[in-house]
């Protein structure tokens, strides 16, 4: 979607608009835009305001203005830094795993083979699953007493007993990444496959005549062609990664200890368990800025390479 905005900038309008036409457009758009402003901008501004105040647990009044104290509390707390670290590790894993798998799936499903239609149809099923349900499915799939993964590993002779994957900090984080990527890889594959389908056959044929092998064609034809789609996919994956809450909530609730406590889980605990609205809001502002900056940096990097 980041691309949508860049591309459509060059779209020129054909006929000049009369004043009445422009007013008509404004009137058509006004209800939706007003609703969004009311529901999105007002609470966002309120959260920003809260973050500079010592808010009482009821939250009705913002309380006393305390400047940057909430931010100082946040930045001075080791819990925040460990949570930030977990968020970065989780996001990196999520973006890499789901983008690479998605690309692999898209390349597979772009080849001609019997049964391709059914395999393509499967792609939308994980995508349509609610994030929370994905968390539940994976939470039990890797369970230490009834889990399917443990059963499979034992059947294959790889282990001789059941392992409680979610009680180990390291494997819990890995499983959280895999579970969340289960859906996102399919989403990435849907977009990338659509991009691959527009790749003209002639480009590959010409490259083959010029002596390029499969790997060379992949590097010099497929990847450059897919770059705009890849950019969109990666930006969306980064945003989804930073905002992920449901999967981790359903799998580990941030545990064991705080091994999977990403920022959104920390904000939830701060706002609704500790009812500390001031620092919770400061954390929320930090998270919003992070996901915005993450998205912008990616767009920059991907477009700089293009020149």
């Amino acid at each position: 979607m980041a691309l949508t905005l860049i591309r459509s900038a060059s779209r020129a309008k054909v006929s000049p608009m009369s004043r009445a036409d422009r007013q008509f457009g404004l009137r058509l758009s006004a209800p939706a835009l007003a609703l969004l402003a009311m529901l999105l901008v007002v609470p966002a501004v309120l959260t920003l305001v809260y973050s500079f105040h010592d808010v009482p647990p009821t939250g009705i009044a913002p309380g006393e203005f305390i400047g940057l104290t909430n931010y100082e509390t946040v930045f001075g707390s080791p819990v925040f830094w460990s949570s930030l670290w977990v968020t970065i590790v989780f996001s990196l894993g999520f973006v890499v795993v789901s983008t690479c798998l998605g690309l692999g799936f898209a390349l597979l499903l772009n080849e001609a083979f019997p049964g391709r239609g059914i395999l393509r149809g499967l792609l939308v099923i994980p995508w349509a699953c609610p994030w929370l349900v994905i968390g539940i499915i994976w939470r039990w799939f890797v369970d230490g007493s009834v889990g399917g993964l443990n059963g499979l590993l034992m059947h294959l002779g790889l282990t001789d007993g059941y392992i409680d994957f979610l009680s180990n900090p390291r494997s819990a984080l890995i499983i959280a990444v895999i579970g969340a990527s289960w859906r996102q890889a399919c989403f990435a594959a849907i977009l990338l496959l659509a991009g691959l389908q527009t790749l003209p056959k002639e480009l590959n044929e010409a490259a083959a005549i010029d002596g390029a092998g499969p790997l060379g064609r992949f590097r010099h034809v497929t990847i450059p062609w897919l770059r705009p789609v890849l950019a969109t996919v990666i930006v969306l994956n980064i945003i989804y990664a930073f905002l992920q809450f449901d999967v981790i909530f359903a799998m580990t609730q941030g545990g064991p200890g705080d091994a999977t406590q990403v920022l959104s889980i920390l904000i939830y605990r701060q706002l609704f368990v500790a009812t500390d609205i001031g620092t919770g809001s400061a954390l929320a502002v930090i998270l919003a800025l992070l996901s915005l900056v993450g998205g912008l940096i990616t767009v920059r990097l991907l477009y700089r390479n293009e020149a």
Partner: protein
Amino acid sequence: MTATHDRPRTTIPASSNTPAIRRRPRRRVKRGLVLGVVGLAYLLWILLPMWYVAISSVTTAEQIGVRPMPIIPTDITLDNYVGLLTGNTGREQFGTIDIGTRLIDAIAQSFLVSSILVVLNLLIAGLCAYGMSRYPFRGSRPLHLGVIAARVVPPIAIVGPFFVVFRYADLLDTPWALVISYNVFTLPIAIMVLKDYFDKLPVEIEEAARLDGASRLQIIWVVVAPLARPGLVAAGVLIFLEAWSEFFYSLVLTNQLTVPPLLAGFQSAQQFNWNSLAAATILALIPPVVIVLIFQRQVVGALAAGYDK
């Protein structure tokens, strides 16, 4: 149309009537092998977790507890589903009420919230997207960018004010709390998908209708609405899925009113076993999966259109 500049410029030789690379048999075997391995990995990736949930939902706790668990269950039972649908899971919460009874209610509430949002959003987002596409006004471009940027705002970052206002207005734990707050993410999607759709829709038919003397409003209802059906369907499906899947606002603003927070509640209820939860999960997945399979073409088209302009 604007994308040509960033495509690789591979020169096609003038004598391009040479037959394209003919595959040698050995290469074909290799290709088949690679496809087979990757295809199998793909199938396992998607199906293994689903398969596990499916067999868990039709077996008992004793069967699934065998180590290693049976990959194909020998004895199939529908008791988990029957228990949920008749409100008789045998597991009680707060005394005498069987918590299984709440699933049917939650599914009904999820349908109610999602359907209201689809109708409401298609109407106002459709008008907004059409206005921005056909009658761009001063500030419509930055506003459109703002709508896109709204997707980056973490829902959790703005839930606090919602909670406070809804408690004040006595709207907590009602479907209306969700119908109002879900607009935060459903409206931007709907506007984006529909604006994109209208931008691609040729204007000639509308211009002809205008020359015939139709008013701008008449054009919308009589000409554009039927033409835009595929776009409206795609947007409607995306709104429905988004509303059906939403967990966080429903968790915070209601007492397990819709399906996702209820499933989370089932999961944390001590006496509720995994097999019943698996059956509840399958029941909760049926509506979105059926809808997405029916409207697969429109949905994939809308997703792909996110970049293809």
